[in-house]
């Protein structure tokens, strides 16, 4: 299954989803497309002032440009998502979208998609961390593998 991860640049979540035979949906894929496309108009990520306009699909013009720019990157991932894992309040090194408003909006949109969602708090102790990994693995096992889904 195509599993949306949040924070959507979390390498740990990405790796776990892949290990359990699913397809992770991560922002690196979208940024990769942008920086590998012909011409680099706006380094570092090649997001141009046109991109926040695509974000208008999700949020009105009074929503900050940074939120809409992020939403334009997340749009294809949200569209494809068949399941999702959301980690609340992670430390910055676990993965980070940088913006609390984007976090709120993405959570809300995923809820409306009626797909299997696992929500977890970021662990603060070793015991919690073990439970955290266990819950994710159980959730991933419960999903239909990517091959079967095709």
């Amino acid at each position, binding site marked *: 299954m195509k599993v949306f991860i949040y924070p959507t640049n979390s390498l740990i979540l990405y790796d776990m989803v892949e290990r359990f035979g699913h397809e992770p949906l991560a922002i690196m894929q979208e940024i990769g497309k942008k920086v590998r496309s012909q011409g680099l108009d706006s*380094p570092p990520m090649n997001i141009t002032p046109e991109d926040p306009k695509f974000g208008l699909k999700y949020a009105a013009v009074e929503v*900050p440009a940074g939120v809409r*720019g992020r939403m334009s990157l997340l749009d294809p991932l949200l569209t494809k998502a068949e399941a999702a894992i959301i980690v609340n309040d992670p430390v910055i090194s676990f993965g980070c979208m940088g913006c609390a408003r984007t976090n709120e909006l993405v959570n809300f949109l995923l809820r409306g998609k009626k797909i299997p969602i696992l929500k977890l708090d970021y662990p603060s102790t070793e015991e919690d961390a073990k439970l955290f990994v266990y819950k994710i693995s159980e959730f991933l096992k419960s999903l239909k593998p990517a091959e079967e889904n095709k």
Partner: protein
Amino acid sequence: MSVQDDNISQKSCAGCGEEKEIAPGIGHALKKITATENLVRVAQLSCGAEYSGIQDEIDSAAKQVNAIMVYPEIDIADVESIEEEFGLKVASPDLRLMMARAKSIVTGKVHVDAVFVATCFRCAEAAIVRSEVRRYIHEKTGIPVISYSFTERTTAATLLTRMEALTTTARRKSLLAREKQTGLTAGIDSGSTTTKAIIMKDNVIIGKGWVPTIKVIESAEEAFNNAMKEAGITRSDIQALGTTGYGRFLIGEHLKADLMQEEITVNSKGAVYLADKQKGVATVLDIGGMDNKAISVTDGIPGMFTMGGICAGASGRFLEMTAKRLGVSITELGSLALKGKASNVKMNSYCIVFGIQSLVNSLAGGSTPEDVAAAACHSVAEQLFEQQLQEVDVKEPVIMVGGTALIEGLPKAVEELLKVKVIVPPNAQYIGAVGAALLASGFINK
């Protein structure tokens, strides 16, 4: 008053609060000027700039003033502990990153010459952090700092004057420390609405010229000639010339000026000079024909400043339209406002369209022209207070400059809102030209 030259235009919208300054050719002229100057390292503390698609615009504006944007190094541990240390708990991690980077500058971990703090327009959490980070750096280090809230429509041209002022403050401290004008120098302020020229000799103004800006070069020449005529001198007598304002590069290149400088540093200098407040702190307010500047000054050097084109309703243009509707000249509007009471008129909007409509309705409802004039001044002052003065620390003395300072009702309205005494120095309308003439005298020996 509304005439613009083809080379310079500015658009601003009351509804969205976005502003644009477009000045084709400025980049080319700046490149020539700054190519020989020191590279300035500007720390960028921002949230959302890369996702808004404007990072290239920021880099481009910096490049045009021979500056480079740098990102202060921090440890992950600094980001995790910064909320406790800084005292602000925020939900967005990028704002924590901003605070950690600010700390890195304050503790001397990184060396930078200036700081640019920027966050998304309309993000309330970011606005709080932006304001506090700016204050923190300014108070702890004295490094020049500017803050800005951007949208995806922010362009390099919008940022250019701000970047120029920021780098000038970092680069030319010795020039800005000049307190007396020496020799025979001239200053020309090519504003969006009017062009002013001043001739100074040994710290005394000896000639003035003031004309509406129609065609930038022709208007500058006319104002300059008028000032020289009054001073009884010719062009060859002048030892150094400085230009400022929107048309500074065009007229500067045309007249071979020694100094072409943006109006934030020049007006700060001119304001404290004319008000005789060169030492210590001061706040300079300049409500221009098309935009406003609020500058926090220490010893004549700008520290924090904002430059708005937030809304045409907060500009001299609003007052000009009110005067036209009341059938009085702009110079009469101020004294009319002093006789009126703003609270007698209900205004539903600050907007240059809908606000004027409120004033017209009030007149139709029996309000006196005096009350309407006072309400117009109050509206402009209130919008300046609400939308711009939060961005600088207002410290006394407050000096109001520019042509609008002479509309007596406006300084009075600002006084009432800020609860401080507002100083309007003599020759307030010539502030930019005086500042340019004063600073130009630093070029006499060159």
